[in-house]
């Protein structure tokens, strides 16, 4: 409060009601929200990193196919759930994927990187992107006409676990 008084002339502060404003509480709420956002973002980055690590681990003797499959199913489900999120700021998993893609693309753009790695990564990322595309309305209508459930059941069948 005294610091604020330093930067706002006393008469103006009184006119704005700043001398009665609870700045501490205001900052507290805003900081709490920011804190949560940071934690969620870090958590999403950790999840995506673990997914990448499980892929890399296939080259090591500790490779584990089941864990890899289940983990990527989890990531897929999380990603698809976030597509319904209207607030783009809260699409933590999608942001994490974007950042990871940027990092990997940056590494692969190096002149010493073999062409085949670049190609392989392009194919894998295209495949992954295809996995999380929600069916369009027309497709859902067709599906319904075929008598095999609606939009929801198709979306569910796309993010199934087993």
């Amino acid at each position, binding site marked *: 409060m005294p610091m604020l008084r330093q*930067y706002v002339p006393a008469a103006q502060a009184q006119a704005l009601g700043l001398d009665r404003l609870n700045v501490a*509480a205001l900052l507290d709420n805003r900081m709490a929200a920011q804190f949560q956002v940071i*934690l969620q973002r870090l958590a999403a980055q950790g999840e995506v*990193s673990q997914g990448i*690590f499980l892929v890399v681990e296939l080259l090591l003797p500790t490779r584990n196919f089941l864990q890899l499959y289940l983990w990527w199913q*989890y990531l897929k489900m999380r990603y698809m759930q976030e597509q319904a999120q209207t607030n783009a700021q809260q699409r933590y998993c999608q942001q994490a994927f974007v950042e990871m893609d940027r990092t990997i693309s940056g590494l692969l753009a190096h002149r010493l990187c073999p062409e085949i790695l670049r190609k392989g990564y392009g194919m894998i990322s295209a495949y992954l992107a295809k996995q999380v595309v929600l069916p369009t309305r027309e497709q859902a209508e067709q599906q319904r006409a075929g008598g095999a459930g609606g939009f929801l059941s198709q979306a569910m069948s796309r993010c199934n676990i087993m």
Partner: protein
Amino acid sequence: MWVVVSQTLGTFFSILFSSTAVLPPLPDSIDSVFMASEQANRAKSEGTAAYSRGDYQTATNLFTTAVEHGAGDKEFLKIIHSNRSAAYFNMKQYEKALSDGNKCVELDAQWSKGYGRKGDALYALRRFGEAYNAYNAALRIAPADQAMKEKAEKAMAAIRNESSSAGSSASTSSASDDSVVVKYLKYATLGLFFTYLIPLGGMVNSWSYRLSAGAFAIEQIIGVYKRHGFPRLAEDYAARLMPDSALPRLLLGFFVAMSPRPYLLALIPILLMTIASFTQNIFQVGSSIIYVLKPIQNAIFEHTVWTRQCPCHRRKSHAHASSVCAGCSGTGSWS
């Protein structure tokens, strides 16, 4: 001159005779058009009496009678509709209360009470955004209405609450309103994570890893049960469950607990999500520490000389906390 006079008289007479033809025939009683009939008034007073007795069914019936007999009188009708809306509201028939509230607004768009009735019904129907708009409309007409202000604030709080719980219900719910079991499961998740970090031997490490993730999964199961009830094989249950962020978390906990060997990287998201649910508590503790340290901080501040450029650009004042710039005497402008 005579021509003008005769023309004026002719116009006058033509207006006189034609206007009698245009006007509708006068009714035998003015009351039947411009005021509610005796019957309607009686029904209204009886209905009000029934309402204050708490007999809402009778009250709505009487108000309906009053509406039928009081057709044409807007002032009368709006009050009747408002009363009937309140009666329906008390009978928990919110759809009917809403339609009466809408009728009130339709009859008199400058009557704040009508908007209030509409807002109440909308709030009860959990349409908080529309309720907030209705209360706001009422406040625009009567800005000094304290009760209406409180209602608008309540609606706004409900909107915020709903939007935050729709997005990430599990992360935004504070740990302070959890049950004891959930709270201890969270403590277990955190505690076992740190036990896992301490190298105590293979078994201890792997079991603390598993139990940490397992506690997280069980916590999510409890959350899902609390919000959506016991699992059912029904489409509506699935439709409510699918957007819930606890579902992928539950799978996360399950997969991590089932993994054949521990991965530190897999447990970190669980740790961070658990810490995020303690945000409110962390900040409460933080603010209470600040409260305790405030006098000390002030004392330190009072003994610190802050150097800054005054907005008046006259001088660089070495201002004390309570003093003002000697150049502009605190106004910040050229003098």
